[in-house]
């Protein structure tokens, strides 16, 4: 059933309206709308946004099902207000062939709660040595539109050059995990005062900044689209700003945790705070917020990275990097961007839906709330407050750094092409 009457919703927080959905498409917007034999969603005067799009998640399937599956990850996505996610290829086997990406896409469709778009690997086995069959993945049933070796950087400048050149003819984007591995050998934490005191090997901000600088030059020459994953250092902002001013086709994302959390949290050595790139300083989080407001950073992407407890409840060095993000992302953005007045609801729609859909080349996501457009929405109660409990999140793993934290804003409902996928904190199967 993809007919739906949504009443008393405030698109982008503006005047309350009713929306009538027919066949998954908005057929009418007005006040006092009625329809016979149609399911209704009383929006209660809450904020209606286009469905959120996440360019960066790890769903762990295939191979890491003890941490997350496409099903549990889809639940988390729907509950977080997402209607499309991009699943990174660092699975086992790696998503570097049509077979694997088609499997991911198909599992996403079977679950049916969120559009799961597999990201293909740039290089075979994420080894950074040889291009994967990008063209085959593009033309496969998975219709891959983004490639990344995320988790690893495409460090070899020649491989990166070739990837960008090759991708330019396929009209796909290369998403780079910017980390010069030569500068981050053994790195455990942001290189700075905290890491030096804790005796944790440093991950210098220069390892990110230098790769971004190199890649924007390569993208400029190749005329290719480059997307920079999880920007974390304030020094990277100047590089991105200059590249954009030159007209380089570069976009960038920031994670919710790099908007909010700092390396000050590391003092207890709890690996729930271990993530790559690492949590940096307050000056960095502030720079991330300003760059996102300014548009130098285009989008928020979660880097949702579930890890089962055996990979996290360990000594710091042994723990895997990564944290849950799908169900807390919008709340963190409200807290860090909306509450301080850096973004309004149109801005939230832009950085969490419209721009990600554009970068990911999704024609039916991130669309305006208007007649004739897909009824794909996130309904948000901006005044709600909730306390994060990892065990209560939908992911298989519970590795949230926000445990016990009180955050603003709750997703009341998620709608995918007229179908309610989540409602009042419950998945609608």
């Amino acid at each position, binding site marked *: 059933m993809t007919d739906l009457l949504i009443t008393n919703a405030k698109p982008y927080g503006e005047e309350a309206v009713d929306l009538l959905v027919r066949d998954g498409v908005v057929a009418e917007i007005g006040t006092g709308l009625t329809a016979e034999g149609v399911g209704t969603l009383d929006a209660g005067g809450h904020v209606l946004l286009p469905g959120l799009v996440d360019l960066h998640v790890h769903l762990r399937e295939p191979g890491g099902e003890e941490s997350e599956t496409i099903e549990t990850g889809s639940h988390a996505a729907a509950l977080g207000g997402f209607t499309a996610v991009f699943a990174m290829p660092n699975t086992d086997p790696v998503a570097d062939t049509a077979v694997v990406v088609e499997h991911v896409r198909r599992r996403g469709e079977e679950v049916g709660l969120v559009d799961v778009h597999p990201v293909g690997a740039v290089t075979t086995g994420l080894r950074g040595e040889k291009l994967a069959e990008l063209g085959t993945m593009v033309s496969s049933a998975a219709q891959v539109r983004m490639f990344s070796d995320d988790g690893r950087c495409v460090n070899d400048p020649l491989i990166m050059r070739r990837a960008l050149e090759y991708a330019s003819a396929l009209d796909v984007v290369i998403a780079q995990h910017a980390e010069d591995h030569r500068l981050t050998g053994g790195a455990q934490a942001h290189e700075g005062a905290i890491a030096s*005191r804790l*005796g944790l090997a*440093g991950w210098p901000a220069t390892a990110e900044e230098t790769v971004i600088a190199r890649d924007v030059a390569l993208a400029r020459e190749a005329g290719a689209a480059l997307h920079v994953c999880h920007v974390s250092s304030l020094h990277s902002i100047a590089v991105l700003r200059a590249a954009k001013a030159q007209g380089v086709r570069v976009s960038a994302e920031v994670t919710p945790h790099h908007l909010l959390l700092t390396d000050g949290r590391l003092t207890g050595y709890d690996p729930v705070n271990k993530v790559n790139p690492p949590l940096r300083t307050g000056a960095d989080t502030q720079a991330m917020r300003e760059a996102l407001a300014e548009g130098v950073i285009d989008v928020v992407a979660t880097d949702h990275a579930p890890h089962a407890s055996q990979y996290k409840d360990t000594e710091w060095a042994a723990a895997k990097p990564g944290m849950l993000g799908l169900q807390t992302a919008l709340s963190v953005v409200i807290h860090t961007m909306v509450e301080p007045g850096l973004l309004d609801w149109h801005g939230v729609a832009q950085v969490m839906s419209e721009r990600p859909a554009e970068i990911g080349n999704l024609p039916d996501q991130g669309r305006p709330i208007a007649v004739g457009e897909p009824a794909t929405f996130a309904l948000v109660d901006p005044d709600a407050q909730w306390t994060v409990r990892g065990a209560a999140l939908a992911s298989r793993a519970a590795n949230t750094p926000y445990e016990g934290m009180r955050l603003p804003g709750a997703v009341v409902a998620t709608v995918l092409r007229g179908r309610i996928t989540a409602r009042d904190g419950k998945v609608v199967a």
Partner: protein
Amino acid sequence: MKHLLSIADLDAATATGLLDTASRLKDTLLGREVRKLPTLRGRTVVTLFYEDSTRTRVSFEIAGKWMSADTINVSAKGSSVSKGESLRDTSLTISAMGADCVIVRHPASGAAHRIAGWADKDAGTTGTHTSIVNAGDGTHEHPTQALLDAATLRERLGSVAGRRIGIVGDVLHSRVARSNVLLLSTLGAEVVLIAPPTLLPTGVAEWPCRVAHHLDAELPALDAVMMLRVQAERMHGGFFPSAREYSIAYGLNERRLALLPEGAPVLHPGPMVRGMEIAPAVADAPNAAVLAQVRNGVHVRMAVLYHLLAGAPE
């Protein structure tokens, strides 16, 4: 004191109390034929070492035995660790067997903090408390080494407060340096780190100490100097051009010894690499306090066990 994880957890009074206890224990045992005190009879102390170590493990073991504790040594080699057991499970297993104190050395910074966290959580449900002592965690800290260094400096200099202590060498990778900077500054000393920039951590400017790069310029104004070992794996890590150049720039040779004020003690946490960071003649000079450090190590560790397991004396 519940655990001893970091010098940062000690205020000046607590640290001084530990040093005073160590000094009293040393005096008590001096010249005794039977070096055994009944204080910790019936208590169980386990050393859990994930790194090779002779001096620290033996020192803790002797300290426990002289206090009449039952001491048991667990080496990560040949234990369930090699079967893939997690640090959490191994440490909780040892706690569950009734260890009153687990002394842990581990290559991961923060390992002792994690074990203490797990032990405290477990104590919340079982009611049995296990004290954790950090005997060296990665490149983080080695608190009892700093305490024995401070005990040695007190002996040689009369006091630590107001003294200027130089720490020379691989500060970046040294848990000894981190603990010493914290403890010596807490006790009122002025600490000067002397090393090439490649062997100093980013962020060292925020430590409670001064940083210098030229050893000769600093030596005349130091009350004591502590040489750090240059680990073999660093020599090939590109941190400095060659062992030879390092030795020329930062090694404590006889010429440099003469630059120090007369009688200024020379400390080294051991094991020494003679001819590298310290010349043989300097290592054996009257200034050298290396064996005094080792002797004090036992008394300091006795004091730590005493404060943890029997409570600080009034």
